């Protein structure tokens, strides 16, 4: 049937000699076509006019749109790339784009960017210093870190520049200042972390002001009666210890004396250990002071070195003392 259906279709489409067996079928098709196309088609002038005018009217607008839309799309794409490239750093994929845009003045040049970074770092550093003075240490630390971060970025950017010695100097200065401020902040935080009522040898002494004299002063630390760990001799170590940290580095032998108390604020040579907790008389706040001292030791290697020297001196003095009268600690050079 496939062949006959194909042959019939061919006859209906193209005409030709009709085989006898298909003649009735072709005749049926002819009559059907006559029937279906006999009806007159009404005049459709209004529909025609609407269609033609609609085609003409609507397409002009869209042609304009076809021209303009790609231009807008391209401009938007370039704008996005330029925006993204504007904040790229050396090594980023878009950095070459930014470099080119900077050269032609479309975006910031690298030098401008370094200047901006320096300006921001300066602002952060100033704010950090102010916060530090107000003893807002966390805020000061954050600001100082931000300042330091800006200087690092500026340092990276400077690698792309020649003949920018002045900028390099500025960045180096800022970096040094920010680092120093951070050190100060860390130190101040450590001081705060060690409570005032610490025992002798507390690290916050600085100048050794909390000398352990008076028994009535429960904060006093060294030698005070209330301090359960009466630990020996810290007291005001301003005399002896080279370090502000009082801590009696007198070694374990001292605590037997339990003394050094009172008036004998004998820090003296036995003091000054960075690790003041090691010394006797560290009292109930030993743990906290240990933490603080550990942190400090990490942060300040030089101080640790000094402290070790001082501890050695203290040990030597203690031995001398033991050889003498075997009494309490603290040579008490004061």
């Amino acid at each position, binding site marked *: *049937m*496939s062949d*006959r*259906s*194909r042959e*019939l*279709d061919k006859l*209906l*489409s193209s005409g030709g000699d009709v085989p006898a067996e298909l003649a*009735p*079928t072709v*005749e*049926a*098709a002819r*009559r*059907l*076509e006559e*029937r*279906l*196309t006999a*009806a007159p*088609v*009404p005049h*459709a002038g209004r*529909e*025609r006019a*609407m*269609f*033609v*005018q*609609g*085609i*003409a*009217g*609507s*397409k*002009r607008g*869209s*042609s304009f749109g076809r021209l303009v839309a790609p231009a807008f799309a391209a401009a938007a794409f370039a704008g996005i790339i330029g925006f993204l490239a504007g904040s790229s750093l050396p090594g980023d994929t878009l950095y070459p784009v930014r470099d080119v845009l900077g050269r032609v003045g479309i975006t910031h040049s690298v030098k401008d960017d370094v200047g901006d970074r320096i300006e921001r770092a300066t602002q952060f550093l100033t704010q950090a210093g102010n916060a530090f003075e107000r003893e807002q240490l966390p805020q000061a630390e954050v600001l100082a870190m931000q300042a330091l971060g800006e200087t690092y970025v500026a340092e990276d950017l400077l690698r792309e520049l020649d003949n920018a010695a002045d900028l390099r100097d500025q960045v180096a200065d800022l970096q040094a200042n920010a680092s120093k401020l951070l050190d100060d902040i860390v130190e101040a935080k450590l001081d705060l972390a060690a409570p005032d009522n610490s025992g002798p040898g507390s690290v916050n002494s600085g100048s050794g002001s909390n000398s352990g004299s008076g028994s009535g002063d429960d904060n006093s630390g060294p030698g005070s009666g209330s301090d359960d760990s009466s630990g020996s001799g810290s007291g005001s170590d301003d005399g002896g210890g080279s370090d502000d940290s009082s801590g009696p580095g007198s070694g374990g032998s001292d605590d037997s004396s339990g003394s050094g108390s009172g008036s004998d604020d004998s820090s003296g040579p036995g003091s000054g250990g960075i690790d003041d907790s090691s010394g006797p008389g560290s009292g109930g706040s030993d743990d906290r002071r240990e933490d603080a001292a550990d942190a400090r030791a990490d942060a300040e290697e030089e101080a640790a070195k000094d402290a070790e020297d001082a501890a050695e001196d203290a040990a030597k003095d203690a031995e001398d003392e033991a050889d003498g009268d075997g009494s309490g600690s603290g040579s008490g050079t004061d």
Partner: protein
Amino acid sequence: MEESRLKQQVRRAARGEEEAAAELFDHYYPRVYRYALSKLGSEQDAQDVASEAFAKVLRELDRFRWKGSGFEAWLFRIASNLVVDFYRRSGREQVRDTRAEMEEADPMTPETVFAQTELRGELDGMLAELSDDQREVLLLRFSAGLDTHEVGRVMGRNANAVRQLQFRALDALRTRMSDVGSI
């Protein structure tokens, strides 16, 4: 209209050229109208469907692409869908043919409804006895003037299947005409 000429005119119309749009309308409006008339049986309804078909062409000509099926197939698919929509809107699908109900429990298609409600003369009655697909092939072929390939594109069938449907439909018509002595 030859296919190359047709493509050219469609492109020109898409660019907004009035002359091309007018030529397309003049060439296809009568065929769309006759196809709709053969399906709906009402001149007014056929005019409405034909007008709406060209309005839709106007709205969507931008999106028309020559992908496999051509403009004719696209146009008459629009017209065919509008006829179906027309039946749905008019509620004529609720009309039932008692004989059809006896023969099959399936709900009637718009074409079947047309076949039973729009009997117009002997030939129309013969058409009404054909299956939906057979009748659709004959209407697209002889009232819309599409070739078998285009009919296949409108109906979603291949040309060979359309030829076989056409052959069976015409053979059935021939038999009925022989029975009534008109051939």
